């Protein structure tokens, strides 16, 4: 009889002396139990009671399991010859890791934060990100456009931007030849327009983010200023209520963008007597000269954080503050009552006509108000049920539109006294770092290919942004203007031109382009251009 394989010729030593060298023991059993000499490796089928009718492991999986174990014995560990390829191994969702003690764990998805958010969370994230500084400029924008026109324009812009956002979300799906799962919108633009597309889309998206951040900075310095002043007055028992709650002036100074986009009032100190203590205070606590710099100390550290989950928790505060804002506005409206008269075309002393030709200012503001196109893909990527993306997006837009309408209408009709100061500042403190994070991800991701290249890169970027904010706060604190121009400019690219153009091109490539679609999308592009040009004439 021929004998089996072997490479050595010496005989086996039958008895291994276990007391000297027991070898690895199976910890499930006591060392005195003979079963403790069993190897650890316990088959999943062994965990099932033999009388179980329902198998825990299917026959196919069990056979594959044995096969893979056997094959792994045939090669050296470094050899890739007999490693199971992905298409024969079950999906990660069907894999369980068995511990020697009998429990089984399902494999978690290893990408952090991927696909974990429910629809509700996604909707709130979109809503919260869109609720920015714009919420404060809506009442002002309605004033500029007239009440009726304002309502109509808000709803129409909401629909238009929703459609363009839908186009952005679907743009990746139209590309079938390349794997687009990690792509953001600048990557799509690069695919269609080359590197010009990538860098221009990046630039525009940064314009919007940085514009928003500058506005934030200005507003925050304003409110920090006002808060400081209020505290100072309180401490020194100066009755300043007339100044703060001045309602005779048609331009209340507390929330500058609520009414007045033009002149943040630096001269609100006129009520004070000349007092050396006060003078010192005024010198060190000046709205445009010093307070902006104090904010740096508060915010710059926050901007340098690495992980977005920190911000998203922080962001919850933003939601709370927006809700508080809504609640407060409602309260005030109830208390102050409605002051609304309908005069259609003629301005009167205290009221504005319903339809005004300055409504493009509102559209400019709204372009930024409804702007989320640069990060919508990232936000929707984390949605657990991807098929609900469009539905969730529509719901979020609807919520945003309703919120804007609500606040805009209420502030507008219950004018003249919305003291919004203390509430505004909390809301913005939370959104600011998240915006900083988004700007950083976008810019650094594209320049360096790495979202957090090093603390120095991040620091420099944050300094640039903060510096711009400080400069603006010092020299051009015209928030409405900033919002209008930056909104219209980046909205032009991201909201109107790129989504429509990309859609037309992809349809053309698939030869599905029809005349109605072409005309409709060109019309959108023209609207966007007009939006931007008209801002300069208003």
């Amino acid at each position, binding site marked *: 009889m021929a004998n*089996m394989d072997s490479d050595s010729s010496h005989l*086996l030593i039958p008895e291994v002396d276990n007391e000297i060298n027991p070898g690895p023991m199976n910890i499930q059993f006591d060392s005195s139990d003979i079963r403790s000499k069993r190897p650890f490796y316990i088959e999943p089928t062994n965990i099932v009671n*033999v009388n179980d009718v329902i198998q825990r492991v299917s026959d196919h999986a069990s056979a594959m399991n*044995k*096969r893979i174990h056997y094959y792994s014995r*045939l090669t050296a560990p470094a050899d890739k010859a007999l490693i*199971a390829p992905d298409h*024969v191994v079950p999906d990660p969702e069907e894999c369980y890791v068995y511990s020697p003690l009998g429990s089984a764990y399902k494999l978690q998805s290893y990408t952090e934060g991927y696909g974990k958010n429910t629809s509700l969370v996604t909707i709130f994230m979109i809503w919260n990100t869109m609720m920015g500084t714009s919420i404060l400029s809506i009442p002002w924008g309605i004033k500029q456009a007239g009440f009726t026109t304002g309502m109509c324009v808000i709803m129409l812009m909401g629909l238009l931007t929703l459609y363009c956002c839908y186009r952005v979300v679907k743009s990746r799906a139209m590309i079938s030849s390349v794997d687009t799962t990690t792509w953001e919108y600048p990557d799509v633009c690069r695919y269609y327009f080359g590197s010009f597309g990538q860098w221009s889309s990046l630039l525009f998206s940064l314009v919007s983010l940085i514009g928003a951040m500058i506005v934030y900075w200005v507003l925050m310095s304003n409110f920090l200023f006002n808060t400081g002043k209020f505290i100072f007055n309180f401490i020194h028992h100066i009755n300043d209520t007339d100044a703060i709650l001045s309602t005779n002036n048609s331009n209340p100074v507390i929330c500058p963008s609520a009414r007045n986009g033009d002149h943040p009032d630096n001269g609100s100190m006129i009520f004070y007597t000349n007092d050396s203590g006060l003078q010192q205070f005024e010198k060190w606590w000046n709205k445009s000269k010093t307070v902006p710099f104090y904010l740096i100390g508060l915010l710059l550290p926050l901007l340098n954080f690495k992980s977005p989950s920190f911000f998203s928790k922080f962001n919850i505060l933003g939601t709370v503050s927006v809700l508080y804002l809504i609640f407060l506005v409602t309260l005030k409206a109830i208390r102050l009552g409605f002051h609304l008269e309908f005069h259609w075309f003629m301005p009167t002393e205290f009221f504005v006509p319903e339809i005004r030709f300055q409504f493009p200012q509102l559209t400019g503001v709204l372009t930024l108000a409804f702007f989320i196109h640069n990060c919508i893909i990232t936000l929707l990527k984390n949605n657990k049920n991807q098929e609900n993306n469009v539905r969730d997006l529509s719901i979020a837009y609807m919520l945003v539109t309703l919120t804007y309408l609500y606040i805009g209408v209420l502030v507008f009709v219950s004018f003249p006294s919305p003291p919004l100061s203390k509430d505004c500042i909390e809301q913005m403190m939370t959104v600011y770092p998240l915006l900083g994070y988004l700007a950083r991800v976008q810019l650094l991701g594209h320049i360096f290919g790495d979202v957090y290249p090093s603390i120095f890169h991040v620091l420099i970027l944050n300094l640039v942004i903060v510096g711009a904010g400080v400069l603006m706060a010092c020299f051009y604190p015209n928030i409405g203007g900033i919002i209008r121009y930056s909104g219209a400019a980046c909205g032009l690219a991201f909201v109107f031109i790129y989504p429509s153009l990309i859609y037309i091109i992809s349809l053309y490539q698939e030869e599905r382009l029809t005349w109605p679609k072409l005309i409709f999308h060109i019309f959108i592009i023209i609207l966007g251009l007009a939006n931007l040009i008209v801002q300069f004439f208003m």
Partner: protein
Amino acid sequence: MEESDSEKKMEKENLGTRMDPPIGETEGSLGWVLPNTAMKKKVLLMGKSGSGKTSMRSIIFANYIARDTRRLGATSKMFYLIVKSGDLNNSHNTLGCSNLGMQSLTDLFLSIQDTFMENYFTSQRDNIFRNVEVLIYVFDVESRELEKDMHYYQSCLEAILQNSPDAKIFCLVHKMDLVQEDQRDLIFKEREEDLRRLSRPLECSCFRTSIWDETLYKAWSSIVYQLIPNVQQLEMNLRNFAEIIEADEVLLFERATFLVISHYQCKEQRDVHRSEKISNIIKQFKLSCSKLAASFQSMEVRNSNFAAFIDIFTSNTYVMVVMSDPSIPSAATLINIRNARKHFEKLERVDGPKQCLLMR
């Protein structure tokens, strides 16, 4: 078969001397041989480089994949030569090369391979193709050079026709897991028709295989089944044996590969993959044993619900007996197996020297 709360009893036997396939003999006693018989029969495993022959061989025969030829020694050079004789890039570097190295030389030698193949075939051809019992030709289903594949296949067939016209021909369409499931049947049927057509006047049997499912095991089992000369008689005897000892299931495995030669079962079993699983388990166990310089002889697995015995049976086979009545003592079954062994050995001897797939 559940293995919970069971004890495995194993017996180890002393090693004898190792059998190497004789080298240097010019009649071409290379490949797989039966050393104890006068007639030397061969199984040729051929196919293009990268078609999966070495993996297949390693899996079926439970050998370590011979990446480093130092382990196998000088004999491997000749063996490699034979195995890769259908290769496109067969070159002087065959000897002692890993597959990887050969792959990279493909481009370099592409131009001279045809001439080389011609020369090689003419000079060594008779040696290789004489006394071949079985030719197993492996086709890679993903290969883009169908013309070339068919050309080489036909050269082999010509050689077989000249030197061993009685050889059985098996074609394996391998790596089927890389084809989409809904297209597998279609593609395999196409290939089968082509191969049947090309093989005339010889008859070839085609199988579709992949190492990642049970098809490889089934294909090789079918091949081995066809090699056993009196398999029907064997099956009948096996059935009688099983009924006498009141076994639930009896299987006969080929000795080296644990491929199922024949089996009898008295009732339907739930797991259709069980033969392959057992084969894999035993082969894995054999690999472990070989590390201790031991060889596997027999095994008993016992449970409150069943008892299974795996033991050497004849010179070419192992038997596995599954009893579902645990009250029957092991000794009784073992005695039965021992007595049956004598009977089956007589059966084998009576019919003359049998083919056996013996591997080191």
